[in-house]
């Protein structure tokens, strides 16, 4: 275990308090500046991205492996949820199916790399993601291809989550549950095995840990969390199409975990805040440029990339990392 995780209880609770206070101030500022409706809609997205971020943090931060396929796993969850909801399957069942499908996807994506590790996970998850994206485009009879699918609002029993408040609430509850589960996992035998694999695979194997199994488990659990996030995201955005879940999303999720701080669960929330706020900030900044300037889309991409480079160089431990 690294020293940063073994901090004393007093320091940790002070950190938690400071983080909670900062979040409360941010939330108040967001409501004041953007209006309640808009702020709540954004809160739904932030909580959903944070769930996906938890999945990445388990794989990248806890187990120390690289995944370039989380975006596609989110896509699997989103499509499973959308298709089942359109066929009238009740939400608790379809959510479970979405989570299971994405977890199976995580298992499949990590299978080729599990004895090789390191870069090979990046390669095999990348291949998996590209195959999934192509399959979503080509399997038109099921997914309607590149045209995409409209998704009805989330219905739990007789209650329909079609307002921003309801969506933010559902997102918050789901995040709280996922967070609680992750804290249990990270503190358990499984979590210790993950960190041991991250720090030194040979030593972990010598201590009796099944390294390949620990890695696979991280990808399965991370995939399940991505599936949950994808299923909720499909409802919030109301429309799914294959290009939403491409390589760019996988990199955004990696960036989320890296910016927030991949070693701490709290990094998921901070990273989600940045990832939701950054594109909107960037497009606001681009709007201020003279209107005659062509290629605004290009400038947005360039600014986004520049922010990523600067954050990686200046804050290698992420926002939640104290080092």
């Amino acid at each position, binding site marked *: 275990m690294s020293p940063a995780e073994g901090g004393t209880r007093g320091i940790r609770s002070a950190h938690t308090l400071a983080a909670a206070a900062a979040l409360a101030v941010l939330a108040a500022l967001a409501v004041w500046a953007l209006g309640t409706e808009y702020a709540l809609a954004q809160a739904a997205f932030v909580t959903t991205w944070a769930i996906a971020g938890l999945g990445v943090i388990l794989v*990248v931060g806890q187990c120390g492996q*690289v995944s370039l396929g989380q975006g596609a796993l989110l896509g699997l969850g989103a499509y499973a949820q959308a298709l089942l909801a359109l066929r009238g399957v009740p939400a608790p069942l379809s959510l479970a199916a979405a989570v299971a499908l994405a977890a199976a996807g995580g298992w499949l994506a990590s*299978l*080729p*790399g599990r*004895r*090789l590790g*390191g*870069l*090979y996970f*990046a*390669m*095999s998850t*990348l*291949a*998996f993601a*590209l*195959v999934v994206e*192509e*399959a979503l*485009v*080509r399997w038109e009879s099921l997914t309607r291809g590149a045209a995409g699918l409209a998704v009805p609002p989330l219905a739990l029993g007789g209650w329909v989550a079609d307002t921003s408040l309801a969506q933010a609430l559902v997102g918050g509850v789901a995040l709280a549950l996922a967070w609680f589960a992750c804290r249990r996992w990270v503190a358990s035998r499984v979590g210790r095995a993950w960190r041991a694999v991250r720090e030194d695979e040979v030593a972990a194997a010598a201590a009796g840990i099944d390294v390949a199994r620990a890695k696979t488990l991280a990808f399965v659990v991370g995939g399940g969390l991505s599936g949950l996030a994808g299923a909720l995201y499909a409802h919030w955005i109301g429309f799914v199409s294959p290009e939403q879940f491409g*390589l760019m999303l996988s*990199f955004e999720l*990696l*960036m989320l975990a*890296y910016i927030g701080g*991949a070693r701490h669960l709290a990094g998921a929330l901070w990273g989600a805040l940045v990832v939701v706020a950054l594109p909107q900030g960037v497009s606001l900044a681009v709007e201020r440029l003279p209107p005659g300037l*062509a*290629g*605004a*889309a*290009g*400038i*947005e*991409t*360039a*600014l*986004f*990339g*520049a*922010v*990523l*480079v600067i954050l*990686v*160089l200046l804050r*290698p431990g992420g926002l939640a990392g104290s080092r």
Partner: protein
Amino acid sequence: MSALTLIQVLASGVATGCVYGLVALSFVLIYKATGAVSFMQGELLMVGAFAVLALHEAAGLPLVAALVLGVAAMAAFGALLERTVLRRTPGPGHLTALLLTFGLGMVMRGAVGAVPAASHAMHRLPLPFAGASVQLGGATLAAEHLAVIAATALLAGALTLFFRRTRAGLALRACSEDVQVAALMGVSVAGMHTLAWALGAGLAAVAGVLLAPVTFVHPNMGLVALKAFPAAVLGGMTSLPGALAGGVFLGVVEAVAGLALPEGAKDVVPYLLMMAVLLLFPGGFAAGLRGRP
């Protein structure tokens, strides 16, 4: 399907495969020498093609001069990036370099896309042999395919000479075998890192110029570099000849898959192949060729 069609399809597959192979070569070269996973080879390829295009069309240089100058400028750009940004990569680990190069790639793609002249029209590099064809024993082969294959063979020969016969090549090889021993033997490791990035960027630029007659020159042409990863894996990830061979093999497989399989399968085959290779032959197809760059 006649044998002649097959020959034509194979020739086009080998030509496309050469481009994949060159990009894979640049990726593996950087990975071996510096340990960094570069996700911006596609963008370097695209910027290289645009640099040659701009030097030829906007600055009015003759094509050969534009080509040499453009590739040299890209090599210098790669070295500059290494000196200013990539060298500062904090800590080890694939993730940092991956995110850093992806961010740099976004900056390049966005910057080129923001230039109206570059993003609003399709461009074609007016190479002298573009559009011509060669009759070879009844089969009609596109001259640009033959030119791509010849150029790749020439480049591979030059690289072999560089790695086998020059001190810098030897030092680069030593660096990728064992950094500490290389440093003890008086090799400047930092200098070799700069050289590796310069070579990688230059190679990507050459691949961009070779790709220009096949596709158009546009800001998203760097997507072709995604095919370089399966090529590198097929070649065993750390073998330069393996990467080139993997690329050519992939190009041929893709061309044949385009003939024999339903539409869309062509784009998936390289990745399915890569996952299968990782499962069955983790050392890569070219494990037997490995051992010497």
